């Protein structure tokens, strides 16, 4: 500043200019959306979660789409799963979610209730979206109260991934229709012979407990509530904790520290329940051979399994519903896209894509064979869209189950805590 107290006009102007520029900058970043220019070109934002292979594949698919529809540009946004939903929630609440985004059954009702999801039926009726040729009725996964708010891109089911070598060395066989008793007997054999735990921590996985409940005529969720009692859960967690204590289930302290590796590929246990399309990760992470094994049953027959799936959903407030529908239709039906994506998001959901992609590597082949077998066994049940708040409950189930495993919470108190948190989550 000049010392004589005379500020030059230019100084003031400069300062004013800088302020204006700063404010102007804030203003432009504030609104951000530039979709739809005057020349007929349209830009859509498309968001998904997943690892690098998925991102590469999706980007390739987008390039194909842009070639076929030169007037539509796709702007990709991607993160990992955790960050994805935090970001999405913030964007959606600000009225600025992506036009098209990856979705899953646990979030359908939640965002439908909040008015974020577009009913794609109208676009299908207008001929912009093809709802034909979906396999095994998976299209129903994206329906809530008669609306089509998600279009499945793939189908997957819960499975048991096993360390094949460990199972062989222990001399146990995983076979269709085996019971829970047989499963735990197998774990005992593994522990006796190989001195490692059998399972990585089955009882904190919400989707597995769902299968167990289904085997017993219940389900984790009804349309609006939990489908089991506190006593049911207390029993489930009491048994689980007993098995941690006896060493049948791996030490949770070790599992925790192996992350981001899974307990199975870190060699801490011989089997792990997860979604079948996740099984591909183990080969890359671990040193053994991994295979898919059937879910244990209660009655020797019913596994309680169903086909879940990842979906594509659209923002109800998008400025370009037609283009959004065209893009989704292309992504789920185009055979080339099927070839590029493979089974990364589950077995391809439409016949066009399923027929176009023939897996050649053992991992993808294994997933395909597994789902084939499950479908043939005729055990597949129907999935119901989870009530709003299901995502919060899934996280709570994992956390509280972990406290039980660590011996920090008694099963009865843990079950009580879950019910109380579920109540809050449903109300939210």
């Amino acid at each position, binding site marked *: 500043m000049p010392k004589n107290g005379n500020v030059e006009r230019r100084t*003031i102007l400069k300062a004013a200019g800088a302020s204006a520029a*700063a404010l102007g900058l804030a203003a432009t970043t504030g609104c951000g959306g530039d979709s739809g220019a005057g020349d007929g070109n349209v830009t859509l934002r498309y968001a998904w979660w997943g690892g690098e292979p998925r991102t590469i594949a999706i980007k390739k698919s987008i390039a194909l789409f842009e070639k076929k529809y030169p007037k539509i540009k796709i702007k990709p946004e991607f993160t990992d799963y955790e960050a994805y939903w935090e970001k999405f929630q913030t964007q959606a609440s600000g009225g600025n979610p992506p036009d098209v985004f990856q979705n899953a059954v646990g979030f359908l009702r939640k965002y439908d209730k909040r008015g974020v999801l577009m009913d794609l039926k109208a676009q299908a009726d207008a001929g912009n979206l093809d709802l034909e040729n979906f396999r095994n009725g998976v299209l129903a996964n994206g329906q809530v109260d008669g609306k089509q708010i998600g279009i499945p891109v793939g189908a997957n089911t819960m499975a048991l991934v096993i360390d094949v070598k460990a199972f062989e060395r222990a001399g146990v066989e995983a076979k269709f229709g085996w019971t829970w008793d047989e499963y735990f007997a197998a774990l005992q054999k593994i522990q006796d012979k190989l001195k490692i735990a059998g399972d990585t921590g089955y009882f904190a996985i919400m989707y597995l407990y769902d299968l167990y409940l289904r085997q017993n005529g219940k389900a984790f969720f009804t349309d609006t509530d939990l489908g089991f009692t506190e006593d049911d859960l207390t029993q489930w967690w009491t048994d689980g904790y007993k098995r941690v204590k006896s060493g049948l289930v791996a030490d949770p302290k070790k599992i925790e520290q192996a992350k981001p590796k899974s307990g199975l590929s870190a060699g801490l246990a011989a089997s792990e329940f997860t979604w079948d399309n996740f099984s591909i990760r183990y080969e890359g992470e671990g040193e053994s051979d991994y295979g898919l094994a059937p879910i244990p049953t209660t009655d020797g027959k019913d596994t309680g399994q169903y086909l879940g799936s990842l979906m594509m959903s659209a923002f109800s407030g998008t400025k370009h519903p037609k283009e959004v529908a065209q893009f989704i239709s292309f992504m789920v039906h185009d055979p080339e896209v099927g070839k590029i994506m493979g089974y990364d998001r589950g077995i391809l959901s439409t016949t066009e894509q399923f027929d176009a992609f023939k897996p050649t590597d053992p991992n993808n082949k294994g997933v395909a064979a597994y789902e084939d077998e499950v479908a043939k066994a005729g055990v597949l049940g129907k999935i119901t869209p989870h009530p709003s708040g299901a995502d919060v409950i899934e996280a709570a189930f994992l956390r509280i189950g*972990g406290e039980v495993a660590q011996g920090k919470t008694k099963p009865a108190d843990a079950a009580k805590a879950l019910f109380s948190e579920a109540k809050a989550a449903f109300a939210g």
Partner: protein
Amino acid sequence: MTLVKEAPAPPAKKRSAAPAAGRRGRRRENLAGYLFMSPWIAGFLLLTAGPMIASLYYAFTSYNLFTPPKWVGLDNFTTMFQDPRWQKSVEVTLKYVVVATPLKLLLALGVAMLLAQKRRGQALYRAAFYMPSLIGASVSVGFVWRALFSDDAVVDRTQKIFGLDVGGWIGNPDYVLYALVALSIWQFGAPMVIFLAGLKQVPQELYEAAEMDGAGPFRRFWNITLPMISPVLFFNVLLESIHAFQVFGSAYVVSDSRCGPADATLVYTCYLYQKGFKESQMGFASAMAWTLVIAVALVTAVLFWSQKKWVHYEEAAK
């Protein structure tokens, strides 16, 4: 931060000699000043003051970000005080503050005393000890910490040599918080620098006189150093405890975004974050935030009140 008060600055020269022109000039100068500040002022109003007022309002509402906030009065606060996870988060945070802050300051003071002596390469040592505070807040250090304290990692193996088989701190609910404490202590650079400045101000004559009277090193530390640097100590205690109350990044990264296992590192801000951004209970999260503000203000007030008893301000030069 002044500790031995310097002579008061000479009063600013009055410009009343040329009244009218001077006043106009000053007004112009002020105007320019405000203009230069305006981006900051706008930013403050838009990004700090605005959200704060909004969150104060949300604290009394049920707000899930999508449907308009619904006034619920004190409901958020009553649910909060009864919520076992909230109680747990308070417990974890207090434990962290009470353990990490004194240890960090102790180390900072110790190292500062070593570095206050004249030695060769002193600047290098100072830089080296300060370095961790510069990078300490980064996410990558959190990952490094996780790797260091995991099962069968450096710390675990070292412990085993001494016959302590814990099996890694990260997965163990009884130990994992101390991994965070260690991370905090490791970043003692900032308070150390402030201690150093304080130590430099202690008049050497006092030591010389004390030595002549036969006071040993401990005596000199207790009766000279400590009282003389007590304002600096006060400042550091204040700053570091406020800091510790707000710990978030390290807890979030070291324990894999869930602040566990078994909620063992569920520090206050981590629970606040989970409530707000994972469970979409913004009203509840806002209530938590304001409760923290009030709690920190109370702690600060208590510290200020207590300083009469132990902080020694040298009167301005007679």
